[in-house]
């Protein structure tokens, strides 16, 4: 890989031990993936925030670093609401470690927004054509597919390296040749809301790490694209997709003639195979709710009281933008949780079954939290959370 003189100096340790290690990470990854050079990034979103995932060693590693980020950098969701963790049943020990982790990131100059939807709270972090180093798989998918920016799916350390150096190796989704569609998926059904999560759940398993191009009958809204991408990134490892007539067009035509047809039946199977019966908790906001989704939840909860635990997960800045909606939602007894979600918080582990409207949460809850998952539309989730008797 070609390195500039300045990059060579950093690699030789002239700029300190942390910069050296960070440059080593970027160069090693560039080498592995055949990058020719490093490219500047506009922003970084860093994984490895929930203490549940990184543990003591991860915290120690972050604490051992010295330096300041050189591009705008924000965080992935944490293992708890940073203010209301007690209500979530989080232990003091975990809370202390989680707050120390966030503090260790703050010390490096990182903005403390813990969210998988950075694009819902800041416009300037990603614009069409920008190179980014983002981590969270649904945010990566959204940035690549809906915003038209370019990012690989970074691990925690490689994202942090990009934040401290301001660059990332140019390989993978930074290059046109890797942004070429690999599968054409025709969907002959009218889809809405959580149907897109179901479609993503199915499509991700089929295309794995491919780049699907969808030909849809219905026209997805931004939140529906968010759900589609999130689910495909979880059931497969899709980091980029296209929807004809909706998203940006591919830079290169379809690679193969591999065409798949899906219909109502495949979508319905996702609901049928994951019934909500027996769920003790309902959780929405995977990925984090937008203002529009909070509005819808608030409307559905109007004049209702919850009969089960109901979590609505969102970014703190989104909640702060609409205190009226938070009040409306919480008047039902539901909780609007910020900075965290059901997938990364240990608070989920005390439940045996959770009902969700997200194809991503559906994929991850059993494996990451040991929690069974049911899948329903937002409306049915709210109904289950507010009806008498078991779900």
């Amino acid at each position: 890989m070609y390195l500039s003189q300045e990059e060579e100096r950093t690699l030789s340790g002239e700029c300190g031990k942390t910069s050296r290690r960070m440059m080593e990470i970027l160069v090693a990854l560039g080498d592995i993936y055949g990058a020719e050079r490093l490219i500047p990034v506009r922003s970084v979103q860093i994984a490895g925030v929930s203490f549940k995932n990184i543990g003591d060693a991860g915290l120690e590693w972050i604490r051992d670093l010295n330096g300041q980020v050189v591009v705008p950098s924000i965080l992935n969701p944490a293992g708890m609401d940073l203010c209301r963790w007690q209500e979530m049943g989080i232990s003091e020990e975990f809370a202390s470690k989680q707050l120390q982790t966030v503090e260790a990131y703050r010390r490096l100059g990182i903005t403390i927004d813990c969210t998988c939807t950075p694009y819902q709270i800041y416009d300037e972090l990603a614009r069409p054509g920008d190179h980014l180093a983002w981590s969270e798989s649904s945010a990566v998918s959204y940035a690549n597919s809906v915003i038209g920016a370019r990012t690989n799916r970074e691990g925690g350390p490689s994202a942090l390296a990009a934040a401290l150096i301001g660059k990332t190796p140019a390989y993978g989704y930074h290059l046109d040749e890797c942004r070429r569609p690999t599968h054409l998926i025709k969907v002959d059904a009218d889809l809405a809301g959580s149907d897109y999560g179901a479609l993503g759940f199915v499509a991700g398993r089929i295309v794995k790490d491919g780049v699907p191009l969808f030909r849809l009958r219905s026209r997805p809204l931004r939140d529906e694209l968010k759900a589609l991408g999130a689910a495909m990134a979880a059931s497969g490892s899709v980091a980029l997709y296209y929807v004809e007539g909706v998203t940006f067009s591919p830079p290169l035509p379809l690679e193969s003639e591999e065409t798949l047809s899906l219909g109502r039946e495949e979508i319905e199977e996702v609901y049928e195979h994951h019934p909500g019966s027996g769920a003790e908790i309902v959780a929405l906001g995977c990925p984090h709710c937008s203002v529009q989704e909070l509005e819808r939840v608030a409307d559905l909860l109007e004049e209702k009281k919850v009969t089960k635990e109901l979590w609505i997960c969102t970014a703190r800045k989104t909640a702060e933008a609409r205190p009226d909606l938070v009040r409306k939602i919480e008047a039902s007894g539901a909780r609007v949780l910020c900075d965290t979600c059901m997938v990364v918080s240990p608070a989920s582990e005390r439940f045996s079954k959770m009902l969700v409207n997200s194809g991503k949460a559906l994929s991850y809850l059993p494996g990451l939290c040991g929690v069974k998952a049911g899948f329903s539309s937002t409306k049915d989730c709210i109904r289950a959370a507010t009806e008498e008797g078991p779900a």
Partner: protein
Amino acid sequence: MREIRCHKVASGCASGPALCTREAISFLGNVDPETGKVVDPSHELYGECICGKVLIFPGGKGSTVGSYVIYRLQKRGLAPAAMVNLRSEAIVAVGAIISGIPLVDRVPEEVLQLERGTWVKVDADQGTIAISE
């Protein structure tokens, strides 16, 4: 003693007894960070302790959290002395770099079949593996 050329991924030089597998390793899930043992019953190395070994495997797989698991192992003194891959991928590469564990790749496949316990010296900086025979 024979020497094999390889490609440096993470710098350093270390030696130890070889522990080889033909299966990829997901450090998150396959290896217990508290004991350094392979705890996945379906893995070829099930029950083996990787601590102090020259761990030779095709490459990593699974969650990126695996990088931190390698770091945790190192902090507890339970990490491999060095690692050798056919082709390193990001999880193991990053884990090795942040932990200061020598890691090399691009070795011939026969290296995966070294007898366990064979003494191996990995010199990532020189790009060589020395095998005692």
